[in-house]
């Protein structure tokens, strides 16, 4: 019977093949994976889950408006920026939509249907939705959008548990979310893939690693499909790096191609064909993409029954900022334009948690100084696991909020943050299966990172500079060789940063990184000039106070415009030598900048490498657009 219908349909309509034979699947949008307040405050970005995009309001959690629910979506006149109208947009045609709906007012309901020719028609439900009901049912086909509007001046409505049927088109599945991995590769178990009800996505990050499964409903086992990648010019792609590529389940990555022939097989859910699409290696193909948040390709699936096209969103990988020694997320507060660039999904990996239960430190500090010790005073090995966990979580959050697959992030690090990012590669869990065994770092950009250490570190730990060390500890800048707490001893950050800056005298931690170049890395270095140092000669100022208070300490004596550069014996940003920041390789150099804004408390003059003024942030944006194989990456 199914075959008969198929033949008849194929003769008449080329596009209906999958709609007749697809296995309808129910999807539920319940908002429980999204954060929000318990009462209305301000509109959120659209919520994307599976095929649905909900906009106009915000997610409420633990709300008195819906006491029996974990999370609902709603809008209200009390919500800044919210609309009296909630829209649910579907990325493909769905049917039989049902949702829980609550309001004290009569609501206007409409939906938009798409016919076989792709034409949209808006249909208003004349009766709308009346208070007292708690469910809205739309037993219709080919729905692309639903609109729910409250025209009351004090509008308030909430909805949840949006259930709808799909199955009429090929489906893109994130195998990481759907747990379809076998080791670091996508499973070849077609029944498992056919049974997947989670991980439906709209596309993938352009990180050259993420793979998504293309699941194509078929009329019968043995039906052949030719899948092609269509670029954003509507042409069949000729570039796997730019547009992504296809391969068969279980195939090797070196078989990626712009087109692929697959044959449907029998599964417990019916006949289906499968392929793997791996996204582009880089988001930006050139200046035309530099100002985009996403771009797109499509997959054309051609069979004897007709052709379908599946849109695939190509997104930038998320960006994670990692601060440095004694820093926190606020270290990047002035790092514009990057931090305000809406084209990037930016998060901050922080390691500034208080360290408690301290029983000993080397050097020794007073107990009140000990109480100020945070993780940002501890070494690479202590902080790398936490930073790696955060990077993995930001990638998971990115997948949820953007509804695209992704397993890697671009890392932008300041100072010691770069050493910590590199140290993460040495951790057992770095090449996790859920990154397809490639690790979660797409490319690394280090800003003023002491890859080869700094002579200031050793100076800070010497007995002869104890006064300077204790004074700086008063600021919270605590130079440690080691800390013992809660039964174990960790390296201090400063001892890990010991090195002469030329490549000699490296700490054990830096030695362990000497040959590590696991991901494409670009280096940015700052170089201080006399304009950054002249204020050190001030009177009745911080620098003088330190010189006076700690007279006899070499570092205090060096705190003059003339003496400070002598510490390094080469260009430097007042803390990190140039060769160290460039890891004895090539990189981008900026003159007239200091290492960090915190140094202004000692009368070094900014701007710092993280201030907006030197335009290093703009350069980072350029590097984020540059391919990992570009000339600035080693």
């Amino acid at each position, binding site marked *: 019977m199914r075959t008969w219908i198929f033949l008849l349909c194929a003769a008449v309509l080329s596009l209906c093949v999958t709609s007749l034979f697809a296995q309808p699947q129910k999807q539920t949008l319940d908002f429980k*994976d999204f954060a929000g307040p318990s009462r209305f405050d301000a509109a959120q970005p659209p919520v994307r889950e599976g095929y649905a995009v909900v906009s106009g309001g915000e997610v409420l*959690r633990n709300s008195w408006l819906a006491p029996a629910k974990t999370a609902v979506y709603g809008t209200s006149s009390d919500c800044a920026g919210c609309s009296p109208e909630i829209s649910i947009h579907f990325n493909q045609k769905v049917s039989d939509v049902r949702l829980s709906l609550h309001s004290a007012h009569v609501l206007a309901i409409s939906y938009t249907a798409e016919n076989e020719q792709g034409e949209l028609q808006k249909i208003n439900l004349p009766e709308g939705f009346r208070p007292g009901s708690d469910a809205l049912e739309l037993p219709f086909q080919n729905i692309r959008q639903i609109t729910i509007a409250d025209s009351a001046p004090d509008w308030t409505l909430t909805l949840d548990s949006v259930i709808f049927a799909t199955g009429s088109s090929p489906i893109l599945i994130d195998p990481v979310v759907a747990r379809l991995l076998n080791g670091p590769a996508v499973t070849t178990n077609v029944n498992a893939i056919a049974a997947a009800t989670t991980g439906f996505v709209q596309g993938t990050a352009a990180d050259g690693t993420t793979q998504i499964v293309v699941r194509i409903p078929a009329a019968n086992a043995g039906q052949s499909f030719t899948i092609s990648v269509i670029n954003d010019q509507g042409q069949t792609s000729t570039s796997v790096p730019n547009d992504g590529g296809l391969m068969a389940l279980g195939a090797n990555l070196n078989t990626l191609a712009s087109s692929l022939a697959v044959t449907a097989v029998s599964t417990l859910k019916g006949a289906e064909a499968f392929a793997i699409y791996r996204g582009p290696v880089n988001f930006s193909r050139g200046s035309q993409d530099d100002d985009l948040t996403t771009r797109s390709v499509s997959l054309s699936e051609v069979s004897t029954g007709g052709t379908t096209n599946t849109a695939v969103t190509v997104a930038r990988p998320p960006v994670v900022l990692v601060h440095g020694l004694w820093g926190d997320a606020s270290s990047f507060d002035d790092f514009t334009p990057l931090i305000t660039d809406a084209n990037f999904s930016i998060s901050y990996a*922080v390691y500034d948690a208080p360290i408690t239960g301290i029983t000993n430190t080397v050097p020794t500090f007073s107990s009140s100084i000990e109480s100020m010790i945070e993780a940002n005073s501890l070494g690479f090995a202590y902080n790398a696991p936490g930073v790696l966990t955060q990077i993995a*979580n930001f990638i*998971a959050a990115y997948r949820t909020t953007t509804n695209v697959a992704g397993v890697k992030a671009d890392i932008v690090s300041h100072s010691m943050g770069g050493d910590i990012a590199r140290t993460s590669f040495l951790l057992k869990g770095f090449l996790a299966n859920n990154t397809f065994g490639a690790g979660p770092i797409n490319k690394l950009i280090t800003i003023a990172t002491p890859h080869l250490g700094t002579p200031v570190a050793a100076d800070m730990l010497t*007995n002869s500079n104890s006064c300077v060390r204790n004074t700086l500890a008063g600021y919270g800048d605590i130079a440690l060789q080691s800390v013992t707490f809660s039964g174990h001893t960790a390296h201090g950050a400063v001892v890990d940063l010991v090195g002469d800056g030329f490549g000699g005298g490296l700490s054990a931690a830096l030695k362990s990184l000497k040959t590590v170049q696991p991901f494409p890395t670009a280096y940015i270095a700052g170089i201080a000039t006399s304009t950054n140092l002249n204020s050190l000669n001030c009177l009745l100022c911080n620098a003088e106070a330190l010189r006076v208070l700690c007279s006899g300490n070499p570092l205090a004596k060096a705190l003059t415009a003339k003496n400070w550069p002598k510490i390094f014996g080469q260009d430097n940003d007042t803390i990190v030598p140039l060769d160290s920041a460039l890891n004895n390789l090539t990189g981008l150099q900026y003159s007239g900048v200091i290492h960090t804004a915190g140094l202004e408390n000692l009368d070094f003059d900014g701007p710092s490498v993280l201030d907006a003024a030197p335009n290093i942030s703009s350069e980072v944006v350029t590097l984020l657009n540059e391919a990992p194989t570009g000339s600035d990456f080693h």
Partner: protein
Amino acid sequence: MKKNRLDYFATAALVLTGLITVASSAQETSLRILSPASGVVARPGQSVTITVSASSAVEKLVLIGQHPIGMARLAIDGTAGMVAHGQGEGHPLQFLLTIPKAIQPGRYRVTALGRTSDGVVESNAVALDVERSDQPARIWTEPSIIHFTHVGDQIPVRVLGAFADGSRAELTRSSNTTFASANPRVASITTSGMVTAVEEGRTSILVRTPSADYSVPVRVQEER
């Protein structure tokens, strides 16, 4: 004359390491912050007067606030700069500590450091509780979703707030911010916002300020 806590500490430990030497009992040293009391609330942009008692054995002293506050200026008529000299306990010194306008709410440690002929001494520490006078119109967190793949892993939650005047601030360390886990058996959270995965399951972290709240979904699902 009562020796302060640091004197004992330094005498007992630091001298052994050779890092700091302090005045011996033959020449008593006293360096204390007399006011304000620890925990006093200060506002961003405010200047706070700190009164310090320093014995005459303290040849030079400065008053330092934790980043980003920095060093205090002397508040003595006709005296400029930051370095004072101990005047004896009957003649307290006053410093003016300026709280930056752009500072995250939270507790900031202030201490005086002095130098004697024998080394460095440190005063008692006082904490300034720097809090804005207004409350956030809304708050949110970074990250907004927490997905653990290993029990025992930890992820810090940062709390951010938007205010009626259009400004934003991180509120993680504000004394007005509290954290709670809806199910500590799945994920626990410390008072400073560090979430720990305890066992597989789902829960949420509730963040509260006096004017707004926010819930963050947490999932603990072991990577297999």
